[in-house]
């Protein structure tokens, strides 16, 4: 299955990566090439095989639902590109 320019544009949008319009044809052909490589998987008979969820047979561990951490506002914000008054700051989200 090949990826056309519209699909490439949609995938870039879903991935939240700005791709200039001029680069879309190149991207579409790169992605098509890789998807083409994956098509080999269609040769495999997977009838009755469950998709793997865990490579080691183990049940996901549970823990008590208690507070184990917190009160680290400064550490949490230390690497933020823009933090003000104890919050992450971002461009206006709601009009």
């Amino acid at each position, binding site marked *: 299955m090949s*990826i056309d320019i519209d*699909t*490439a544009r949609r*995938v*870039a949008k*879903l*991935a*939240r*990566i*700005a*791709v200039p319009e001029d680069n879309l044809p190149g*991207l579409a052909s*790169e*992605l098509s*090439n*890789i*998807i083409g*490589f*994956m*098509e*080999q*998987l*269609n*040769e*495999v008979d*997977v009838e009755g*095989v*469950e*998709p*793997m*969820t*865990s*490579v*080691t047979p*183990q049940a*996901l*561990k549970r*823990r008590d639902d208690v507070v184990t951490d917190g009160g*680290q506002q400064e*550490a*949490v914000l*230390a*690497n*933020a*590109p*823009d933090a003000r008054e104890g919050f*992450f700051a*971002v*461009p*206006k*989200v709601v009009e």
Partner: protein
Amino acid sequence: MTALNSLTISAARDALRAGDVTAADLTSACLSAIEDAGVLNAFVHKTPELAMEQAKSADARLAKGDAPDMCGIPLGIKDLFCTKGVESQAASRILEGFKPEYESTVSQNLLDQGTIMLGKLNMDEFAMGSSNETSVYGDAINPWRREGSDAALTPGGSSGGSASAVAADLCLAATGTDTGGSIRQPAAFTGIVGLKPTYGRCSRWGVVAFASSLDQAGPMTKSVRDAAIMMRAMASHDPKDSTSSELPVPDFEAALTGDIRGKKIGIPKEYRMDGMDDGIEKLWADGADMLRDAGAEIVDISLPHTKYALPAYYVIAPAEASSNLARYDGVRFGHRAKLAAGDGITEMYEKTRAEGFGPEVQRRVMIGTYVLSAGFYDAYYNRARRVRALIKKDFDDVFATGVDAILTPATPSSAFGLGEMKDVDPVQMFLNDVFTVTVNLAGLPGISVPAGLDKQGLPMGLQMIGRPWEEGALLNHAYALEKSIGFVSKPAKWW
């Protein structure tokens, strides 16, 4: 006496305990080797002051007489590990300036043992690559060169800086991580040992995530014994990683008897590929002969779904990456793009990610987005996970017949030149992982051992694959192989 920076961990341990050297001596020797080797571009964030401080504490601990094996050993740490207060960028522009407020569990385990961190090591961006050419820091360079040539070669990837640093004796050993071969392929390209343990042996907490169901940390060292010592120091159960195993961590070094008499070694016929390099094929056959001479039984085995491992991997790994890398949004850490007047939050995400991610990472995130998108999830992602189950079953079936370990080449070729793969399509680059990627999909331990030099004078490696959780037995097989091969070559110093 050998230069201190070229010691193995085990030799340094013995010398430290005997009082023949100090951790400060070892650390100084490594720091000056690093200063001399700027051209290799292996260390990308150096921490000399921190290292000398840690050396002082290690010496104090050694003086008390009950120091652990790794106490006083200077290491390089791959940039993928979060290290408290020290740049941890995963070789990406998007994490520019990021200094974690916490330490990864693996690097913390090493620090608790008294190891010394010399600095952070170059790698492919987010560990996505097989040549270290996708790094924001620029290429790491292989200390090995082809005979009679001064062309710069790749140390492999993604743990390229780790491989280059260990091979050039800039540190005694280094941490690596392996999602599809990122420890074993660079180890093979640089003539060192690289071990990827069983999935779950090491905590992934604090290791920048690429593909969570495949990622594992492991040691990159100058000998199999060193890999055994360092593996034990890195591994632990960690409540902060629910996939980390509660199984006890054994003394892997104690398993190194070199006795493999009566063990069954499988040679998978599917790993014999058309157009395979003659040198690699001979190396593989010689390796099997050596194991036979050491008393092992060599048997032909079949892993019928091998061919589908790469396409399955290149669905699953990008799918997980697209999800893991969603966190780089310019809000909480790292780079944020400069915005134009009127730009809203969506433009901030899109511009930040376009500027912050390199082309290979962008491509993989978009592939992952595509295979997870509505309408394609079943056709690609679920199908790949079903194929993955079959690949694991191939190994289960072979081990059920009594095979103890599997011998394969580590890579289809020796190190290639930097830039040589620039114009080929990305799928060609994927082929580097053809012998290693099955092991990640099946969650097994695998080790690359230097096996000889090819006709260009470059090192090549053999891979051994073990049963799950039996790293000790795997290391013992690798130890027997290492003894028989007797590989002692080092790159001639040109830097």
